[in-house]
């Protein structure tokens, strides 16, 4: 799997081709955290209560921290690859990965790039992601790659808090007023099509499982379903069908129209001032 178009030639010649799937996998983890963090950044000053203002910034902060860890590791692997092939080549770091890649090179889940919408959309997106994130990170904390295990263990503590909070909101909104119930159900119905991507593995996921780096996505899917069913039932919400049509592609760089705008805003400074090396 190629990560970046302009690196194709380097990767083909690289002696460490086996690192490419791992790098790609790290980009998936890092990009999903980064893009969801960016959605939180857009919410600053817009929360329904002061306490939520604090909570949204807190969750966003955790996600950006995780993005920095995953992308930092990905960048080190890419730099090592590059050094082996071309010692004078460009060196990547977490920032260059975050701010200099275009949409087709992003590997985040489609779910996390969905617009904020109303508070039900925000909490629905968060809950569906958190329920997956917690089980995935739990698996990753036992990774054969000690660096991944370490980052996952730290991230798991944060994600557990995120899941508690988003579950509580889904329940509160689902079992709150008629209006909040309607909104929460609508949000869930709209977001559902992006959940297939969380649970459906591809060759990268297979490679990570085979290397003992990542858990079996089927196990994660089973646990995700149990968490989702439990919370939706308590929230008096109707779970959409697992057989529904699923919109996928984020993990291989095929995104919805939303990501381009998100990146245009996020990357504008480093791109407008390419000569600036420090900020």
């Amino acid at each position, binding site marked *: 799997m190629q990560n970046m178009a302009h690196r194709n030639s380097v990767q083909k010649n690289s002696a460490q081709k086996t690192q490419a799937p791992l790098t790609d996998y790290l980009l998936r983890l890092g990009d999903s955290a980064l893009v969801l963090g960016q959605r939180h950044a857009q919410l600053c000053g817009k929360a329904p209560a002061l306490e939520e203002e604090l909570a949204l910034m*807190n969750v966003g902060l955790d996600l950006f921290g995780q993005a920095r860890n995953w992308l930092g590791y990905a960048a080190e692997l890419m730099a090592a690859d590059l050094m082996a092939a071309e010692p004078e080549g460009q060196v990547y770091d977490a920032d260059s990965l975050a701010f200099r890649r275009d949409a087709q090179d992003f590997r985040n889940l489609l779910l996390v790039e969905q617009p904020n919408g109303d508070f039900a959309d925000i909490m629905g997106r968060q809950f569906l992601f958190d329920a997956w994130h917690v089980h995935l990170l739990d698996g990753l904390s036992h990774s054969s790659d000690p660096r991944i295990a370490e980052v996952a263990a730290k991230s798991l503590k944060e994600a557990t808090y995120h899941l508690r909070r988003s579950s509580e909101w889904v329940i509160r909104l689902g079992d709150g007023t008629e209006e*909040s119930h309607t909104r929460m159900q609508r949000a869930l119905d709209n977001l559902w099509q992006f959940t297939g991507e969380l649970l459906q593995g591809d060759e990268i996921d297979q490679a990570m499982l085979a290397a003992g780096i990542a858990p079996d996505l089927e196990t994660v899917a089973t646990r995700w379903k149990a968490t989702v069913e439990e919370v939706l039932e308590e929230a008096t919400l109707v779970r959409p069908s697992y057989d529904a049509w699923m919109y996928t592609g984020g993990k291989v760089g095929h995104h919805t129209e939303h990501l381009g705008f998100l990146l245009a805003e996020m990357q504008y400074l480093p791109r407008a001032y390419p000569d*600036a090396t420090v900020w």
Partner: protein
Amino acid sequence: MYAQLVETGSSQLKTLDEMGPEERQFQERINDEIKIEPKNWMPDAYRKTLIRQISQHAHSEIVGMLPEGNWLTRAPTLKRKLQLMAKIQDEAGHGLYLYSAMETLGADRDEEIDKLHDGRAKYSSIFNYPTLNWADMGTIGWLVDGAAIVNQVPLQRTSYGPYARAMIRVCKEESFHQRQGYQILLTMMQEGTDEQKAMVQDSINRFWWPSLMMFGPSDENSPNSAQSMAWKIKRHSNDELRQRFLDQTVPQLELLGCTAPDPDLKYNQETGHYEFGEIDWQEFFDVVKGNGPCNRERVEARRNAIDNGAWVREAAVAYAAKRQRRAA
């Protein structure tokens, strides 16, 4: 100063002899530097002044999230994004402490927030200025938080216990933000491109005078100061704090290699203080009255957040009631 122009409702100070027994006992307690606590008797005007000041301070923390939030999605590195987000989160937290301190005086948070939204309550004039380039995130940390700290450090000894204790927590975090803000500017000035350096100077040019205005009107135009100082709510005059801020800030400005947009700024060897030009008081009073560059936008953003979230809060209340019924 996050609370400027706080009405005390009295322009003439009473002597101890003119006070009734309760009020005299209260004033003596203040004179002896004993903190006033929520259950102690206090004059109604003291209570109202403090509610105005603390709510103004709390509102400033919350409205102050907006000019910085404006750049949160555009912060140029992950480290800066994390720092800025943590800072904004701290500000929301400061708002919460301050509303809690205010509620110990019998005021209601939601009612005071309504006053902010319909223009009856003020917040710091500084947050009515737009953030137009990234360097503003550094300048706000350095100058705006710097000015706030100069004001808040003495407030750690303010006469009302809950307010004083809130300030101790707030000051620790604010000092950290100020250093980070200065670091943003220093990095751009010392290691940045010419374009980045120009951003820093442009930002200082725009925020310099508004920061000096944060200390409120000059002493001769501060009719409420005498009462606030007698009550030891305020511990120093506006001009005194403004001078202190300027004296500590000019050397930092020089270290950056930047200039102030003030041709009259100079050091006076005899007094050991910096002298500065005349503040545009017309602009100050315009902004305080609601006619600054962003006044309408800021209040509207806050009102929208609360209005658009009404159904969420109603849902939370309805759910809590259901749960309570089920538990019963």
